[in-house]
């Protein structure tokens, strides 16, 4: 941790002042505006906006799809991280870099191409649709794009922990007579729990807020494939600002709680390392 005396290096009050100013204007003020607007609604108005049948269906889908996708990311991420750290195979570097593509690719592009791939005459849809698997304009489609969008998170949180894992732990376990599977389950996996939880939470909270890709693939049918952000946009297009804000506040509160949880988990896992 750094901590140079303010009288020794220049620019402390200037940079801190500007940071606070910019943060306040661009971030805190708009967030406050959102909460103030929501507070100006009466309780009945608020409740009427956030607890309609359509809104409930949207929350359920938003958090359900994000949860399922984050679980899938947990498993795929662990697998990818394990393969990338432990094995060598041709094309490994390419696979390693492709994992980051979802961070760089605009989500709208991802939504567009996924919708194209999984329709009945798409590259993958032509095999899947006859089997009854509807990848586009369905809830499955939403989960698919959320898996894509959240792919890097678990891989990139687990990978460094796995790299730093002391090989002697596994040697000790093997010399005590454990099988590989037992070693993995009892020795390796527990040390990865904090990273796995962090990665899961990151993928989940990204999935909850995701809009750009979902809007292409979901078909946006109320009660069926409408996620909460799409519902907000729909309310906005009806100029129902109050209702849109109420739903937005519900999302915000849940996202901030997630953020808090992530921070607590990270702090705990750091304490564990010491």
């Amino acid at each position, binding site marked *: 941790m750094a901590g*140079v005396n303010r009288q020794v290096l220049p620019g402390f009050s200037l940079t801190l002042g500007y940071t606070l100013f*910019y943060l306040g204007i661009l971030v805190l003020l708009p967030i406050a505006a959102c909460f103030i607007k929501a507070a100006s609604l009466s309780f009945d108005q608020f409740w009427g906006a956030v607890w309609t049948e359509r809104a409930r269906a949207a929350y359920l889908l938003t958090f359900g799809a994000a949860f399922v996708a984050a679980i899938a990311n947990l498993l795929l991420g662990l697998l990818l991280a394990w393969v990338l750290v432990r094995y060598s195979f041709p094309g490994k570097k390419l696979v390693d870099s492709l994992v980051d593509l979802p961070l760089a690719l605009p989500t709208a592009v991802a939504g567009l191409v996924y919708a194209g791939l999984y329709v009945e005459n798409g590259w993958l849809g032509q095999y899947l649709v006859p089997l009854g698997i509807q990848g586009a304009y369905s809830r499955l489609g939403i989960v698919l794009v959320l898996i894509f969008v959240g792919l890097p998170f678990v891989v990139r949180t687990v990978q460094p922990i796995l790299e730093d894992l002391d090989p002697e732990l596994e040697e000790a376990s093997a010399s005590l007579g454990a099988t590989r599977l037992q070693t993995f389950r009892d020795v390796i996996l527990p040390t990865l729990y904090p990273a796995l939880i962090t990665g899961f939470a990151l993928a989940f909270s990204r999935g909850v807020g995701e809009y750009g890709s979902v809007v292409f693939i979901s078909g946006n049918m109320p009660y069926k494939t409408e996620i909460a*952000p799409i519902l907000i946009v729909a309310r906005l297009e009806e100029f129902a600002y109050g209702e849109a804000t109420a739903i937005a506040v519900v999302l915000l509160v849940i996202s901030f709680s997630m953020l808090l949880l992530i921070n607590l988990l990270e702090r705990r896992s750091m304490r564990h390392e010491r």
Partner: protein
Amino acid sequence: MSADGPSVGHRATAPGSIRQAQQDPAWVRWGLISIAITVVVILVVIPVINIFVSALSEGFGVYCDNLFADSDTRDSIMLTLTVVPIALVANLIFGLAAAWAIARFEFPGRTLLTALIDLPFSVSPVVAGLMFVLIFGLQGYLGPFLRRDGYAVMPYLTSLPAVVVFIVTFFLLQPRREKERRGPWKHPKLALLAGSAFVFGLFCFGQQYFEVWPRNQSLKIIFATPGLVLATAFVTFPFVARELIPVMEAVGPDEELAAVSLGANGWQMFWTVTVPNIRWGLVYGIILCNARAVGEFGAVYVVSGHIAGQTDTMPLRIEKLFQEYNLPGSFAVASVLTLLAIFTLIAKIKLERKVPSADDHPAMRNAPEAGK
């Protein structure tokens, strides 16, 4: 840490350090490898190939027409090229300031500030857009005022930079030694307050006197370029700062202290020592910020109003073409953004090796003895 993107520190592993006891049976190894490759192929590789195949499905000529002959598409490219650099520069300046304050100094609320910087990551982009509509939209808090006489704020807004310039100049001209401080520098707080008020008043008055801005006209922020810039800046707010803070901490303050003890002033130190030391981290942050800014959809979608040729950025254009069943056109725009993403990825890999991380400088001791 938080909701978007792992940070730079990680690098690819050096294999060959796998010991006997860590070895898995061959069938497990190859089984897992093939599953992993399949996952990456289905999730990432096939979509990327599909984008280019779909974009070029009607030949290269049509592809070029789709991109450059359609005036709305052309305008969307131009709009993205306007909005993104402005948001980028704003976040860059903020990122540098925040990283300097947080990585070099200890102050109460430092941890809280670091957490607040990450806040935009956990705000759904649509909600972010909504916030700006609530403030600047027609029914928003500032809406009636902006519609009636929106340009009335411009004198005040443009006077703010003048005040900043004044404050910076004041400190730059201030004699270092206490006893050499005369005139306004004897009572710096009073002089700053009075001077700022004077400069602000002078600029406001001047602009109003010469009628620089139109009267009684509405100033559009939502459904116009300023709204797009605000929304983009909000969504990409943390990127540069988050990249720079760990880099600056890893580099440590020693070289800057050396520069100061050799007689450099703040400005000289910043340009000759700080910037060269963090330059790769800076470039890295800019590239990530740029990728996200160009691709931003949700927040921009809400504030844009979808006026073709005026407020459609490239991702919005993709959606509009998609809704119009113009798939080749849609994929053509998408292919450009995909190329940018691939470039970003390559740049990221190249830069990751150059960005200093904590393990590169085990010798860097940031605090004096007491810190141990």
